[in-house]
């Protein structure tokens, strides 16, 4: 929009920012320009320095070198208060909302309107003021509703309202659509459009290239703490962008090596129904193949995975694993070699504070130590073997999992089940929040699994992933499987056609 011709004036500028952490140069001479009414997207692999740059901008980190200019005048940002003074607000990925306070009190947290006596809060004014802010962004909701009752997208709207109520002129959004459905994403984009019209500048961090191209007025690419380029969306392609991000020319997509022919049936599901809202599910997965389970968010994919795994109760149908009927408990399915790698690895798949070693051997403890007596030496040995096999980038087995990157955390979850000698894997959104380079590596890992004769059922919201990784795919809509696509029918158009068709 601002590609040529009329360019809005620069609102804020970072020039020559460097930031070093012990042993790492997180930012190296990075310059970044923010213009009113413009969406400036920031892309780069994990560890490229996006978060550090944003933390410098919002005052959470202090730059070692470099300067800031507000409306062309040099200023200093030493702490978050300074940043707020210049109208900079961050919409954090992990929301900064308090669940059991209402919307209005959340919006004005720390800036309560004083009541008649010291310490008192003027409830009526706070709620009226909140309503005004919510109206301004077109979010029609009662400000007395407690935040924990809201969905993720609504909470994000509250976050945005909170930022704008602080007179934010620059909104930083870090992966805002990570937890949103397609419809909610659309709402967010509409709102971003409205904010732009009002002259708000938006810095948008995303891994999803489709979003980047849909929203960006300008795109800045970071790699290894350096700015690689600032490009206009009209003058670049996704492939070029990825090449800039990874520093070498690669396929956006992952080149699939030839697969062995599918072997014996590993999983057979017949007429499966569950109270969680799925009905009449029939599917098979064979040894040596990756089968996709596609559909829109909320179509019942995760519910199918949980029912097969025994995590949810089923109401009808049967599940056979290696020809034997399983009873529907997680103990039964794991002991027979099934593994579920859940969507939310932080809360469901990992003990973040524990070491990499502790995590990878967790699911296999029974097989590793049948007597029940723990031998630390043997455990570390087993953990090291897995770390080497999956090429998990960690300084040591003792490092806490929470400190690793998203891609490496995902590998730890996979390693956990490898060690438990699982033969059938269900992956629920294995690449969520993982950068492009790590994605390819996760897919290579999946490939290795099926080469070794395992079977994989993969859930993904990104159709392109299903198309490039899977041998076959089932498409779900409203809790039912509405179609099966063989390898030669597997295209994004076919998937989407089935997923949304009425």
């Amino acid at each position, binding site marked *: 929009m601002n590609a040529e011709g009329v360019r809005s004036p620069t609102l804020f500028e970072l020039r020559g920012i460097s930031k070093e952490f012990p042993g790492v140069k997180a930012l190296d001479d990075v310059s970044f320009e923010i213009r009113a009414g413009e969406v400036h997207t920031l892309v780069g692999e994990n560890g490229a320095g996006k978060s550090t740059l944003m933390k410098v901008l919002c005052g959470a980190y202090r730059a070692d070198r470099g300067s800031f200019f507000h409306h062309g005048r040099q200023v200093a940002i030493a702490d978050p208060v300074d940043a707020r003074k210049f109208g900079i607000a961050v919409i954090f990925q992990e929301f900064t909302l308090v669940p059991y306070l209402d919307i209005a009190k959340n919006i004005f947290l720390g800036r309560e309107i004083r009541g008649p006596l010291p310490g008192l809060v003027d409830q009526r004014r706070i709620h009226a003021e909140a309503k005004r802010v919510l109206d301004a962004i077109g979010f029609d909701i009662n400000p007395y509703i407690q935040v*924990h009752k809201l969905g993720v997208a609504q909470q994000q709207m509250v976050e945005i309202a909170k930022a704008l109520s602080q007179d934010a002129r620059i909104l930083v959004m870090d992966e805002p659509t990570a937890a949103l459905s397609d419809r909610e994403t659309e709402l967010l984009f509409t709102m971003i459009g409205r904010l732009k019209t009002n002259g708000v500048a938006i810095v948008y961090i995303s891994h999803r290239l489709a979003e980047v191209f849909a929203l960006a007025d300008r795109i800045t690419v970071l790699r290894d703490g350096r700015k690689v380029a600032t490009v206009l969306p009209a003058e670049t392609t996704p492939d070029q962008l990825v090449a800039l991000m990874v520093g070498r020319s690669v396929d956006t997509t992952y080149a699939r090596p030839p697969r062995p022919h599918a072997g014996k049936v590993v999983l057979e599901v017949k007429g499966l129904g569950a109270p969680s809202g799925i009905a009449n599910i029939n599917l098979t997965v064979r040894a040596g193949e990756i089968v996709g389970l596609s559909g829109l968010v909320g179509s019942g994919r995760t519910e199918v995975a949980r029912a097969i795994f025994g995590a949810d109760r089923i109401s009808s149908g049967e599940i056979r694993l290696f020809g034997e009927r399983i009873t529907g408990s997680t103990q039964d399915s794991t002991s027979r070699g099934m593994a579920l790698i859940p969507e939310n690895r932080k809360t469901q798949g990992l003990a973040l504070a524990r070491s990499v070693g502790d995590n990878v051997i967790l699911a296999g403890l029974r097989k590793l130590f049948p007597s029940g007596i723990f031998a630390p030496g043997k455990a570390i040995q087993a953990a090291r073997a897995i770390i080497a096999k999956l090429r998990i980038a960690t300084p040591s087995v003792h490092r806490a999992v929470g400190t690793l990157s998203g891609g490496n955390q995902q590998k730890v979850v996979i390693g956990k089940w490898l060690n438990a000698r699982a033969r059938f894997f269900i992956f629920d959104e294995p690449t969520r929040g993982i950068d492009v380079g790590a994605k390819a590596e996760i897919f290579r890992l999946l490939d290795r699994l099926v080469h070794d004769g395992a079977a994989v059922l993969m859930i993904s919201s990104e159709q392109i992933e299903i198309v490039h990784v899977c041998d076959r795919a089932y498409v779900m809509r409203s809790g039912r499987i509405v179609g099966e696509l063989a390898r030669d029918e597997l295209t994004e158009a076919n998937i989407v056609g089935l997923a949304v068709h009425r």
Partner: protein
Amino acid sequence: MSVRTAMPNLLARVPGVAIALIVLCTVFGLVSARFATPTNIANILVQSTILLLLALPMTLIIMTEGLDLSIGAVLTFASIILAVIVIATGSFALALSAALAAGLCFGLANGVLISVLGIPPFITTLGTLGIAQGLSLLVTDGQSVVGIPRSIESIYSGRLAGIPLPILIAALAYAVTHILLYHTRFGTYIFALGGNREALKIAGISVRGMLIGVYLFGGLMAGFAALLMTARLNSAHPTAGVGMEFDAIAAVAVGGTSFERGNGWLFGTLLGVLAVGVLRNGLNLLAVPSSAQVASIGALVIVALFIDGLRSEP
């Protein structure tokens, strides 16, 4: 699922603690002729006041994902300070100030240890429980402190406009705590301390200061509770408050305040205190030994939370 859908809509919205309270009153009313008399009901209310003074700050503390195990022992210690000083000097004002100061000191110690040194609340307050209890025994040599002026006793037995003084004090304490929690900045930050501490930091609020404030409030209220306790017993006993932290935590839990995410409900705590009070009173009327009463309070916690659990999301 089936229980939820089978439950009538209105009943489904009544919290577990209210149901437990109604059931308790009905059962005791049917079993004991002495239960549903005006005298006995007034008794229950007066006897619940000390517990309420402890359960109110306990609600706030638990909302911050904290705990105060020391509150009963601090009450005891403050009560002994009160008795000793009033006997020594004859000054009620001085004695009360000293008792409140003792409570505040322990509250400050709890708050500083937890927020500045980062010692978990459970451990910190277990430690201060031991210290307060030990000091009480040390000061009194294990004996009761007797001989305090009659005037103090009247704080517990006296009436104003026909209403027992302890009830007035408790009502005032409830009102103050309600305003504190729902109408002040401090109260708003209590929700945030348990619900999202990061949000507070980003908003530029001192998490440490707020935490210290919450535990100070606990100490202060323990000081006031000590006044009622001393007046009630007309003396100070080094074991008077033993186990009161259990009742207070139980009342908060019964009242539906969660130990996570800053999910608290002050009125629920009031109902929880009454439920505990009714249960103790009813069992007393039925001559059930006090050891069995403790067990029954434990059961009450589980039942009330079970009723709530039936309705919460699966």
